[in-house]
């Protein structure tokens, strides 16, 4: 089967029911996309599928063929996406494991809504768990990208 990830085309012999997550991790070695629950409830595996934030752990290979997948590795060439930069300005990460998923959700939010309200932010980020508790800084970083740095807590 074929798939397109970060602008590159790949071919795989994996079973059609294989979740995209395991193709990314085991085959393509794009390990920035993480396993956290396998059930689309923690958000650690969030990628953009045709621009939409999507949980790769429940997206079967058979559904990916005609779409474009972007992972954290493809969000920017050098980590210069405004969300990545804001994440660093606010020292968001603690352990860092969930942060690629958080950044993918946040970048999708801001791509569709450049001026999210606080409720918009909570709603868009509600599918991404951070066990370290970086939520206050995630909010601050997103507000910062939206030009609302003064609200940052």
């Amino acid at each position, binding site marked *: 089967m074929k798939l397109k990830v970060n602008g590159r085309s790949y071919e795989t012999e994996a079973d059609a029911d294989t979740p995209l997550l395991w193709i990314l991790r085991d085959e393509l070695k794009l390990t920035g996309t993480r396993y956290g629950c*396998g059930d689309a409830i923690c958000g650690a595996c969030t990628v953009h599928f045709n621009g939409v934030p999507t949980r790769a752990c429940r997206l079967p290979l058979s559904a990916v063929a005609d779409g474009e997948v972007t992972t954290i590795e493809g969000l920017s060439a050098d*980590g210069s996406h405004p969300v990545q930069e804001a994440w660093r300005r606010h*020292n968001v990460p603690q*352990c860092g494991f969930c942060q690629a998923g958080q950044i993918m959700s946040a970048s999708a939010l801001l791509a569709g809504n450049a001026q999210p309200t606080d409720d918009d932010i909570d709603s868009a980020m*509600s599918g991404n768990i951070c*066990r*370290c*508790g970086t939520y*206050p800084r995630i909010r601050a970083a997103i507000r910062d990208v939206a030009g609302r740095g003064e609200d940052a807590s």
Partner: protein
Amino acid sequence: MNSVVHLSRRRFLALTGVSASGLLLGGFAGVANAARAGGDATGQRLNLFVSLREDGTVEIIAHRSEMGTGIRTSLPQVVADEMEADWRRVTVVQAIGDAAYGSQNTDGSRSIRNFYTTMRHMGATARHMLEAAAAEHWGVPQDQCSARQHQVIHSDGRTLDFGELAVAAAGQKVPQPAALMLKSPAQFRYIGRDLPIVDLHDITTGKAVFGADVTLPGMVYASIERTPHLGGRIAAYDGAAARKVGGVLDVVELKAPQGAPGFNNVEGLAVIARNTWSAIKGRKALDVKWTPSEHSDHDSEAYLDALQEKVRAGAGTVARERGDVDAALAAAGKVVEASYRTPYLAHAPMEPPVTVARVADERCEVWACTQNPQATQSAVAEALGLDKKAVTVHVTLLGGGFGRKSKPDYSVEAARLAAHVGKPVQVAWTREDDIRHDYYHSCSAMFLKAALDDAGNATAWLARQASPPIGATFDTTVTQLDDGNLSQTFGSVPFAVPNLRVESHEAPAHTRIGWLRSVYNIPFAFGVCSFVDELAHAAGRDPVEYWEAMIGDDRYLDFAPEGFAFSNYGRPIAEYPYDTARLKNVLRTLVATIPWGEKLPAGQGWGVAVTRSFLSYVSVASKVSVADGKLQVLEMHGAIDAGTVVNPDRVHAQIEGGMIFGLSVALLGQIDFERGAVKQSNYHDYPVARIQQTPKVIRSHIVPSDALPAGVGEPGVPPTAPSIANAVFAATGQRIRELPLSKHFSV
């Protein structure tokens, strides 16, 4: 700093010199060539923690595990400061497990407090050797040479870059600790400053290497079905269907040894496959029958009911006693009593346990997200019958730990399978494995009773608890908590009450009990800090004023005369006294930052709690609203007095994160056992706090202090749940004595 680099064992040659903390401090006195370390990422060795490349790159060893506290940054920043290294020219190198470093067991909130002085010595030693090398080069007295920002400068203005001095410095005599000149705090360049974590860029670009990101040539993947109840063994199984799944290579019995669980694997049946998905699919096709055990009837609800009745009904073993509690209770005009209980909890770090192991030529190499690489080394060596020296443990970044990853059972699984299969094996736990096969945080039942005089002051304090002990995980004959466990808030209450008694009941363990972020402080702070709030309200007094009255005069507590062996988190009480002035101050400092006492709309309230844990003093104030059965935490404010702090931004992050971890405990956390097995399985039925449940207002405060550094990673957790429960009472008049709050409200 972009990857986790590992030292080879060849670097651990004979060392000389012993620091005040007993750690080996020296380099290779007089054997310059021996200091040339193996591997292309290493330079001239100045001491156990510092090497210097000839291009001037300073390599600083991080021997503690990074699970989100920022320790891979904070300890090296101490070394760099004393060394006068330019932080931009520092590379942090992650250590393998090796006893030469002293303890690498990254838990107990002790990395900074136990290694702050050692790291200063390491940095100062390196600086001294660089200055000596420059003096030798110029033929001048050493006292005319001083290191400053990666150069040694002579008093006449000449300079040499650290890189130019690498070889010569490594050949210098290692100074005695007494000869070291440490900086004064006014000279600190990095200590006390907000340096970003060294892994920040890698984390935000997806390049950071966690446990599951390690792959080896020829590696196969294992997924393991484990006994649902402690002590179960494979009675029968059918692996035929699993073997037919595409990509599945083998089905392997993973036996568990007899005896206490310890750090061994539990019994399981492993599916070995060419990739993760095949292993998972093959495992689902397994049919396994398990033998029953003495734990296969464990029902947590009935168990807690029984513990609760026991602590309410009768006296237990006395752990601490002052005055005559029974007489004071009998004579009191007013007696208040309450029962509290808290459930089992799972750690649920975002990264489930995972290990890659390779066994060949009588050696084992392990790559693991472990908090405790030396325990991993020992456990793997024992499981394989190897000498410890034949086991090398590489430490990746940890996607959260919270105590779970101090227990290397998952690495033992990988090592056993790798030995059996003859190929490198990755054992990756699913989330279901993680929730169902944890070392669970102890559940707890508490009974508290106090006598009040006419002014509402407490004249007697009686406290009883029953909680399954961590000790049973290592020795099945242990059935109740010891004074060390009780030193976590319950036995160490700081109250100026004339009559006081603390008692303990037996609570035999029926699962693997383990330590989770702040450990027994979680249930005990909930019970103790809720009960103080209850007493304040019974006395008709303001809770903050009442807390100060309960704590009483400024003094250092002495538990010995009351028969209590206060463990003080492993440090001498003379070094880290229990100081009631600091405890009251951290509460006052916090309350001054919030509108305590403000008039609130109906259904809103503030609550406070204050604790000392891991040698730090922490207060938390929470504001909640309750409307139509829906509880929302609106604000959480925390203050910590942790003594000297190295990286204030990371301390703030730990207090923020500690409070949010405490929010999960307060609102959501509950593990239930039915017929010996855990009912929950993933984040849908073992939920943790999400962003929309997190207060919009979260503030943290660091009380300025030049006292010795104390713990930071855990102390934010204990006061959080009681502060929320106390706020719920203020908002509603409803006293919640059982966690989580989701049992009582929609959250």
